[in-house]
């Protein structure tokens, strides 16, 4: 029960910020895919750099556990390509579709229904995919610092500085 309340409150805060940042809208998502409006990229990367520093810090203090998913090239590459086509048609991703609906953009409802159907189809296809796509290029639970053989505090500052330079470039270009 406690976990359910944690989930609801966390979602509430996140949904509030997504709406305030104006990243829930079809126009913003398609704007990014058409390389015309980088609002969602700014939001996402800001979230990533803050989260990256905080979570690695807490991890070093032994307060949290990282959740590293296996890198399997087959499903990641094929899945990402399929996702991109669907995202371009729908104009919302799974989380933002719920937020878009909250803002009154109820065309998201069709997307939500479609995504439930898509999840059901995936569950049916999974036994076949498991024997095919999922066997291609399994690299295991790897991370960038581990592959490069360096401490994560070498990678994190480089990533943060690179992101900030990218932000400066976006502002210069007025995107």
């Amino acid at each position, binding site marked *: 029960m406690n976990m*359910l309340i*944690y*989930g609801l409150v*966390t979602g*509430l805060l*996140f*949904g*509030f*910020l997504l*709406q305030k*940042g104006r990243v*829930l*809208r*079809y*126009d913003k998502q398609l704007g990014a895919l058409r390389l015309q409006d980088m609002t*969602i990229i*700014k*939001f996402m*990367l*800001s979230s990533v*750099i*803050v*989260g990256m520093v*905080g979570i690695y810090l807490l991890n070093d203090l032994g307060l949290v*556990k990282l959740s590293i998913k296996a890198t399997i090239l087959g*499903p*990641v590459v094929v*899945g990402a390509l399929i*996702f991109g086509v*669907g995202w371009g*048609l*729908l*104009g919302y*991703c*799974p*989380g*933002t*579709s*719920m*937020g878009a*609906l*909250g*803002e*009154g953009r*109820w065309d998201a409802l*069709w*997307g*939500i*229904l*479609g995504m*439930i*159907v898509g*999840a*059901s*189809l*995936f569950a*049916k*296809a*999974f036994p076949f995919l498991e024997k095919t*796509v999922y066997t291609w290029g399994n690299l295991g639970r790897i991370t960038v610092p581990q592959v490069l053989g360096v401490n994560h505090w070498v990678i994190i500052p480089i990533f943060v500085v690179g992101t900030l330079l990218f932000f400066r470039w976006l502002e210069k270009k007025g995107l």
Partner: protein
Amino acid sequence: MKLDKGAWNPYLAGALSGLVGIFSVWFAGQYFGASTSFVRTAGMIEQLFGAERVAQMSYYAKTTPHIDWQWMFVVGIFLGSLIAALTSGSFKLQAVPDMWAKRFGKHSVSRRAITAFIGGIVAMFGARMADG
């Protein structure tokens, strides 16, 4: 950067959402995600039509159809957005997004519905495959 009325700077809103993410991992041990909840929802709906069949499917054995932290997180996103929109006057009932209307017209509601529905099917299939 052109911000409409009531909008927050996306860098600030994004950074704050990163903080929410940190606290979520710290206090609840939960990383953000949404697409797994669509699998659980699909499983719960399918259970209404045949619980035994669902129980035999390996993917639903892995992602059991029930309400968990992430499912409530996804509900929370809806409510948080609703509250932010209503309290700032940016709530707007819209069947066709502005950019879509510019290309396909204001009255292309069914065209938008069909595209969004098919897009949803494809997007979720891909998201689940990539484990995103």
